[in-house]
């Protein structure tokens, strides 16, 4: 029973990681780039990179994604 629970946890965890992207799937393709009014440079819409944050508060144990999983269970 314990094993089943942890498997379920992992599956939901993966699902959650796939779905909870930092770019909203509803963002239209033509809004995924924008142009600087200063020099015309085109900027891409990017997802947040975990390594930029590098904080312990964002590791797997404390990630909101896993918090969501707990709610689901």
């Amino acid at each position, binding site marked *: 029973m314990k094993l089943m629970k942890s498997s379920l946890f992992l599956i939901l965890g993966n699902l959650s990681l796939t779905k*909870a992207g*930092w*770019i*909203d799937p*509803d*963002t239209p393709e033509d*809004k*995924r780039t*924008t142009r*600087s*009014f*200063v020099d015309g440079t085109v*900027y891409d*819409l*990017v*997802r*947040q990179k975990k390594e*930029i*944050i590098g904080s312990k*508060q964002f590791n797997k144990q404390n990630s*909101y*994604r896993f*918090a*969501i999983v707990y709610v689901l269970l």
Partner: protein
Amino acid sequence: MSDEFNIPNRSFTDGHDNMWTGLDKSDDDSSAAGGGSLHFYNSSRITTANGTLRINSVIKKTEWEHYDTVKKEFKKVTKYFESGMLQSWNKFCFTGGIIEVDLILPGDPSIGGLWPAAWMLGNLGRATYEASTNMIWPWSYNTCDRDLQEPQAISACNKQNHFGLNPFQGRGATEIDILEMMAGEPGTLPSTEPPISLPYADMTLQVSFLHFFLFTCDREHFILNSCFTKCILDCTWYTQRSSQFWKSSFP
């Protein structure tokens, strides 16, 4: 990152949303502009509907025994508005690039008293949590200047900066406003002393202004300030005036 707010009925109560947190507390900020905000932020005032994020402000009293974290004492406090503040604090940080926001300002541009804003604050401080922002906000100063040392909690003059921060490095929570707006006289609404009454707009860099010039007012008039109020009244930033969205971005 992006968020279109297309999913209806989202809740932003602490722990409910992956990107945002709606506050459940008083706005205790007392600034040079007024004797403290009259808001009590309630996360239930923030939700999503019809593909938009909605922050609903109402006139509603909230009274409680308040602990003043600066004076370290309890006092009875009354707030006259219930509204919402949505924060990304400690959830995602913006380190550079362009931010785009489509928004409609609340209320009617001819009725003042409100001070809606879309703005950023360095993650070192958390807005409305005074104990975290006192002498931190809005400092970005990283030079040792003996005249400026005292009001900056984490100064470049300090041999020892606490909380594990580097010595001789000034730190702070810098404020960058995408848009702040005061429409005019508050009229019959409860107001601060002095009131939030200035026809006032604070926008970041040229892009917001670009929109301002293109759609509302030309540069000459703006500089002369003679049609400032007219600009706001005529523009399409308020629901009452137009259903058009206003867009801001900046490098």
